[in-house]
């Protein structure tokens, strides 16, 4: 009996030991797993961006591009995020929505900017989406919702245009898991605080949009895809407590007004 137990334990240890020893090798690098994953993500990002680019008009006017770019660059600098990874696009659409696509594409609808009372509100939403990108939520969601095999078949051109369109639509109009949304909210608060921006307006924005009396209700895509806005606003406020610092807006007031005026035209 003792012999069997000791031999059994040695066998288990031998297996675990072999596994442990083999795990010391950087197989991901040897098999270039990361490179393949990156390439898939890059291709998917291009495919989905193409869908939105063809459906809506991209706003390329200097005041709009420069203002959004200064905000994003500011967040990246303050939070040590690689700015070159993010590709920000402003699309002319009245929906109040912003969403992330694979490979760092971040789409902001003009409706969101126009409905933000101040730049901090917009900053909160942008930071929330940057957090989704940084935490790799987009690819996680895609793999979970439609599966790796379909994703790979998209990148190799074996999937129909309709599937790509539907998936792109899913990314723009459905929320992530509740836990992923919370992670992104918390991360967004961190980003805002480090960038010396007050996170409270972000919570206010959620409160404001959760109010059904709001005139823009029918365009509230971002809020309808992000349920429990009130609860979210509450934990954002809770989490921001004690993090106050010397808040300073990124854009000058007249730049912010100019941005809105430009979009209204």
């Amino acid at each position, binding site marked *: 009996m003792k012999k069997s137990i000791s031999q059994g334990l040695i066998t288990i240890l031998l297996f675990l030991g072999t596994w442990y020893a083999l795990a010391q090798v950087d197989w*991901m690098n040897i098999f270039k*797993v990361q490179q393949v*994953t990156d390439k898939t993500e890059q291709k998917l990002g291009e495919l989905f961006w193409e869908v939105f680019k063809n459906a809506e008009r991209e706003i390329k006017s200097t005041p709009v591009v420069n203002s959004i770019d200064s905000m994003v660059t500011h967040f990246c600098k303050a939070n040590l995020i690689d700015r070159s990874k993010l590709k920000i696009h402003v699309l002319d659409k009245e929906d109040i929505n912003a969403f992330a696509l694979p490979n760092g594409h971040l789409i902001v609808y003009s409706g969101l900017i126009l409905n933000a009372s101040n730049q901090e509100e917009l900053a909160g939403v942008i930071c929330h989406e940057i957090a989704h990108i940084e935490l790799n939520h987009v690819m996680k969601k895609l793999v979970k919702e439609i599966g790796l095999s379909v994703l790979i078949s998209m990148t190799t051109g074996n999937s129909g245009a309709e599937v790509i369109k539907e998936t792109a639509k899913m990314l723009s109009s459905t929320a992530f898991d509740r836990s992923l949304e919370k992670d992104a909210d918390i991360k967004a608060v961190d980003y805002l605080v480090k960038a010396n921006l007050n996170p409270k307006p972000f919570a206010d924005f959620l409160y404001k949009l959760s109010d059904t009396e709001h005139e823009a209700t029918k365009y509230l895509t971002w809020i309808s895809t992000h349920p429990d806005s009130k609860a979210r606003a509450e934990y954002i406020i809770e989490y921001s407590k004690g993090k106050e610092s010397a808040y300073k807006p990124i854009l000058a007031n007249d730049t912010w007004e100019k941005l809105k005026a430009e979009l209204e035209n």
Partner: protein
Amino acid sequence: MINLKQFSYEPGEHEAETASNSYLMSLIAIIVGLPLPIVNLIATLIFYYGNRKSTYFVRWHCTQALLSQLSMLLINSFGFWWTISIIFTDETITSKYIAYLFAALFFNLTEFIATIYTTIQTRKGIHVEWWFFGSLTNLICKPN
């Protein structure tokens, strides 16, 4: 790892053939069972039940074949479900996962070679006791 031992009696020709077949059974099942490790186990289990009233030599080897399959089932099932979770959930491929596949492959290969060797030896009527599984079989399988 593998010991050639004197069995308590000299097995007859028919006994040696049936005992050898229990290992052969698991080898054949590997072809079907590669994607689904449980198939190997079921095959050896059916063979085990079919021969549980047979002679001591046959019973002994059927038990050893079954036990070795059980351990492989554990290793392979873990790898199998890990792979499934990578394909269908947000689990990602890591160096740890690849290392596990290699470790599992190494143990499966060792078991495969040992099984082929044992199939040949038992067919000749030679008693082969494996490391761990041999002593475990001695505990479970007693002469009538």
